[in-house]
């Protein structure tokens, strides 16, 4: 993945046993091997007793390329894939609570509509939106909502999966690897929307 401020990001998907202490084992490994977690999402998987984790890790390229191999050494990690250079689709989710008195409410709702965000809670003075998508789509909505008064922003980490098709998603930006040359450094791309 393209370097950002001299560090590289990699996206890792892991299936792990749902046991106490698994997260501590993984976070401890990341800390002592010098991997920085940019985001982490965990939840139950389709397999009983297993959770799926999606990590985005940052660090020098030579270091973060070993994340998957190091994770695989952990006994509780059942499967791990570095999907950075794969054809993936990903999403983040955000809950955004905004000041929305009657005077500005319709404008907020209009923006929400354009961004396909759902209103999940509404009060007299505020409302809460739910939006999913790529990081830039969410960043962009948050930026636009700032002038109304952001009360709270809660974001998940990235979740990702391999695409079921060989056709690349137009806006999936970062999938531009040259598979025949694994050391190829990906160009900086825009449009990290993750939408199809």
């Amino acid at each position, binding site marked *: 993945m393209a370097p950002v401020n001299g560090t590289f990001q990699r996206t890792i998907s892991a299936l*792990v*046993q749902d046991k*106490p*202490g698994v997260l*501590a*084992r993984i976070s*401890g490994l990341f800390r*002592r091997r010098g991997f920085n977690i940019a985001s982490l999402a965990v939840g139950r998987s389709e397999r009983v007793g297993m959770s799926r984790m999606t990590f985005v890790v940052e660090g020098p390229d030579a270091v973060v*390329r*070993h994340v998957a*191999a*190091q994770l*695989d*050494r*952990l*006994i*509780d*990690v*059942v*499967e791990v894939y570095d999907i950075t250079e794969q054809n993936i689709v990903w999403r983040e989710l955000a809950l955004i609570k905004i000041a929305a008195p009657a005077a500005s409410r319709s404008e907020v709702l209009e923006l929400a509509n354009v961004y396909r965000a759902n209103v999940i809670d509404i009060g007299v003075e505020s409302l809460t939106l739910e939006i999913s998508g790529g990081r830039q789509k969410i960043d962009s909505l948050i930026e636009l909502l700032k002038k109304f008064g952001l009360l709270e922003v809660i974001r998940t980490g990235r979740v990702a999966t391999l695409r079921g098709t060989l056709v690349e998603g137009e806006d999936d930006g970062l999938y531009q690897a040259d598979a025949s040359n694994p050391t190829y450094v990906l160009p900086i791309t825009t449009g990290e929307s993750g939408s199809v």
Partner: protein
Amino acid sequence: MSKYLSGSQIVCEALLNEGVNVVFGIPGGAILPLYGVLSQYPDLRHILSRHEQGAAHSADGYARSTGKVGVAFATSGPGATNLVTGLATAMMDSVPMVAITGQVGRSAIGTDAFQETDITGATLPVTKHNYLVMRAEDLGATIHEAFHIARTGRPGPVLIDIPKDVFTEMGDYDSSAHIDLPGYNPPGKAEESQVEAAAALINESERPVILAGHGVVLSRSWDELKQLAEKAQIPVVTTLLGISSFPEDHVLSTGFPGMHGMAYASLAVDQADLIINFGSRFDDRIVGDAKRFSTGSKKIHVDIDPAEINKSIQVEAPVIGNIKDVFAQLLPKVKPNTHVDWLQHIEHLKAEHPSLRIPESDRLMGQHVVKALSDVTKGDAIITTGVGQHQMWAAQHYQFTNANSWLSSGGAGTMGYEVPSAIGAQVGNPDKLVWSICGDGGFQMTLMELATAVENNLPVKYAILNNNHLGMITQWQGLFYDGDYQAETYTANPDFVKLADAYGMKGIRVTSQDELESAIAEANAHDGPVIVDFVIEKVDDLYPMIPAGQSVKELIEDPN
């Protein structure tokens, strides 16, 4: 077949079913229920250590010298934390061990109870895996899993923490229960394509060197290594921990390269066109500056741990598999060869850069002691060492001819490893001669284990290379800190001969070269533990040396 037993009984039965017949440990409150059933299991010999670090290193020495899993017991809190250095040592050197610790009762966990430490949390980075077992009925399966994990794949230490009331709880134990570890699939045979690629590189190379690491020893593949080296006439260098994987009196034996290795070994690695690495992790003490390490060679890296491939050195041909299996796959594909020119060149390097010059001095030097030990024992002893100058002199000047006869803390660099590891080695090899080569610094870190040797009538011979200094520190402060010597002199060493007497051991002091052989022979002849206090020259720098992070270009062969 299922049995209904107490947690303590399950632990003992499961250990026996794993083939364990000796454990090293010290009791304490939380693990007392386990000690309470030991008398029911006379086949489980318990050796009472004097410090838990000693128990861990003894289990480690036992494991390395026998190839079996070493077992240590300790209680909760400080008992368990005292194991940590021993676990870290075993982890760095991939030694199969199982540590069983007592924990406070289940209801007290997390309350800062007396002698409570979160030992599974504390040992996460220094164990291959660890467990906190909360039900007696889970104990059997957990212990069998732990042994499976400790001894397979890349071996390592596993810790099992057991709350006091789980030892006394009753539960079912089924010794035939199947191990279910979906996330653990240690490699066996390598992929055929990887072996083919490696064989092709070997067959076309003109200047190959085998780098034999600890993996060869751990997988007990020394016979296969010799077959391969002889078939294609490839010189063999070992890593520090690869020492004793290849007989050093063999014509193809080319020493060990790296920071304090032989100059000819470092030069051979540097000038090779192919490095065939069997089970070494290209450690920084071998590699130095990775950018300038053997730049003219292609590299084959055979390792059981995929995470080691391309970690520090990029290789052309990775081969992931159990080294023993890989040798079996590789041997028929490697063509007989002679490499006459290259071997002549290696002989030339050995003659030009002898590296192991023993100082011509009337005084007693560390090298003299090790050379005499090697000569008198004919390379036939198991040697353990600590860390520092004495360790390197032992590695350089003892000629190892027996497989798996060198036990040293390579990765962790644990001073004090020498004293208890020798006890473990002697317990595991009662008929062999065990010499522990010690520095006076490291010896004093674990000397309380002498009582363990005496109590169990273990005839370990301790050779203290006594210079009243932390010799390697003296050397580094001289070389890299402008001779600003700080905290490297021991002005109050005990009289080690009197100390031997106090422990009920034989003590001998040697102060000159002409006493060496008779003193060593006297120690060998004594039927019991011995300390030989070799009073050696105070300051004597160790060479050859490649300063940390440098390359063979900066090799200092011998400034004198």
